[in-house]
């Protein structure tokens, strides 16, 4: 669980150290009496959102930043993109201090937020692109080339001519993604980019992001609570919970370290057999039984199943990542 990975022979593109963010929130009880009292005096409370988080990203890395709602993912992302001042700690992105919001810095990053649109509602996306072109001062030739490439990769074709309000949610998201990448940023921050999209669209966006990273070498930091996003795109994950960093490393490491169990799925010739003697039965449907066994027992239980029961098919799997993550969160700081 540390930073300082060996790949960081080149200087890191993103580096944060002991980053903290504490919010001050007002609170009030229900009822008319409390409402009247609050006219005179507002009560506040301090809520830590991010506590002493440190990590570093090398250029070109695609890193997944995962955690439950309210874990501090979005807060961290906002601090990295310059939208939020940290309460304490160091932040450096591309050598800049993000909250200073220098123009040279802003020209090299992009922030894409799921469910929030920057495209102008009533006009075709192509015209919103022109707006970004002016703001980012993209030279005409580069602009055309980038638009063509993005249109190709995202299959935007006919979508660009339609007013944004006439597009479906998935089509709109594709256009938002394109708009965010027109200026070929070196660093891409994605905040829940696939939220609300159907499975096909999610897959397409993931494929695009992977391809984009391959072609342009952009560093991508993406938050999500869809494990599928992370599994598909990121070799490295950073897990955050209640503002604290729980894990930073390879996804496979995460699975290996935090699972004490394996899942065995058995397809049996007979139904209604009781497998409780072999391990914890997770589900039993029409002869397909899912068992959960301690890792150390896997080989032995497998052998017994094959020997003692009419097994048609048998697979040994890692538990689903969601389960792994849940256990990580439940364990708090390992």
């Amino acid at each position, binding site marked *: 669980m540390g930073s300082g990975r060996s790949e960081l022979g080149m200087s890191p593109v993103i580096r944060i150290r002991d980053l903290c*963010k504490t*919010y001050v929130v007002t609170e009030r009880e229900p009822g008319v009496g409390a409402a009247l009292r609050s006219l005179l005096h507002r009560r506040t409370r301090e809520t830590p959102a991010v506590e002493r988080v440190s990590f570093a990203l090398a250029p070109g890395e695609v890193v997944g930043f995962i955690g439950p709602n309210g874990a501090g993912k979005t807060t961290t992302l*906002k601090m990295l*993109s*310059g*939208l*939020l*001042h940290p*309460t304490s700690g160091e932040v450096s992105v591309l050598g800049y201090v993000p*909250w200073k*919001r220098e*123009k*040279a*810095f*802003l*020209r090299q*990053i*992009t*922030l894409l*937020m799921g469910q*929030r*649109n*920057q495209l*102008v*509602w*009533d*006009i075709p996306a192509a*015209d*919103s692109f*022109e*707006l970004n072109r*002016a*703001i*980012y*001062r993209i030279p005409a030739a580069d602009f055309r080339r980038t638009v063509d490439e993005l249109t190709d990769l995202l299959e935007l074709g006919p979508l660009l001519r339609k*007013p944004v309000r006439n597009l479906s949610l998935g089509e709109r998201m594709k256009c938002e993604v394109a708009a965010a990448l027109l200026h070929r940023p070196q660093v891409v921050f994605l905040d829940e980019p696939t939220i609300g999209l159907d499975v096909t669209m999610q897959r397409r966006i993931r494929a695009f992001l992977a391809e984009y990273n391959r072609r342009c070498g952009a560093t991508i930091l993406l938050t999500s609570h869809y494990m599928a996003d992370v599994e598909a795109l990121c070799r490295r994950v950073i897990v955050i919970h209640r503002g604290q960093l729980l894990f930073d490393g390879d996804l496979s490491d995460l699975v290996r370290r935090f699972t004490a169990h394996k899942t065995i799925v058995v397809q049996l010739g007979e139904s209604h057999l009781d497998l409780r003697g072999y391990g914890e039965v997770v589900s039993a449907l029409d002869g397909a039984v899912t068992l959960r066994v301690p890792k150390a027992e896997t080989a032995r239980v497998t052998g017994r199943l094959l020997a003692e029961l009419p097994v048609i098919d048998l697979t040994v799997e890692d538990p689903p990542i969601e389960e792994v993550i849940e256990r990580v969160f439940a364990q708090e700081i390992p």
Partner: protein
Amino acid sequence: MRYLLLLAVYVRVNVLGELAYRAAFVMQLFESGVDLGTALGGLAVVFSYTDELGGWRPDEVLALVGIFFLVGGAIRLVIQPSMTRFIESVREGTLDFVLTKPEDAQLLVSIQRVDIWKLTDVALGVGVLAVALARLGTRLGPWEALAFGTALVAGGVIVYSFWLILATLSFWFVRVENILVIFQSMYEAGRWPVTLYPRWLRYALTFLVPVAFVTTVPAQALAGRLDAQTLLEAVALAAGLSVVARICWRLGLRRYSGASA
């Protein structure tokens, strides 16, 4: 200049969105026409009983009405829609998109929405102004024209800065749209020369909500009654308010991004 280029781009974006709603033009014409008719009707009733109003001749008050519509139109053309959108974006979180762009956020926020149909108001204002000027005769010399132009521009800067200061309150408070209503209400007082009002209201319209500098002062320039001191005050106020607006903007941004005091 960079600012003009960006403004042109935003106008284009907004116009493209609006052209889809052609009926909006007819509506706007109707609304502006009714508004103007009301103003002129009021003038007619008042001036049926007197020849001059506190030293103002009918055509001078007509010119004032023209300026009122002209500036009011300009406000509703860019300033009001952009500021309203800005306040919404603070609440919705879409301000973040503006803040990650490599351009001065105050500029982007101020020109982001253009309600192109309000050009009707501006056009009507110019029309009324032209009629008033014609009726006033050719007593307009180069000095008056310069004074008028300066007063008008100063008034514009004052209005913009004032709106921005009010809008930045949304960094600290909720439901700030209501505050903008203050200006709308007090701007209505600009339909008549501010010199008519009792002293306390005159002061309020000069120092509290600077409507006087926006309508009455330019009208005074046209009537040849503007003294240099008032003109200088207008320019000074314009400069001062724009500085204050910038400071409020920066303070507000620091608060929004959670910078410690």
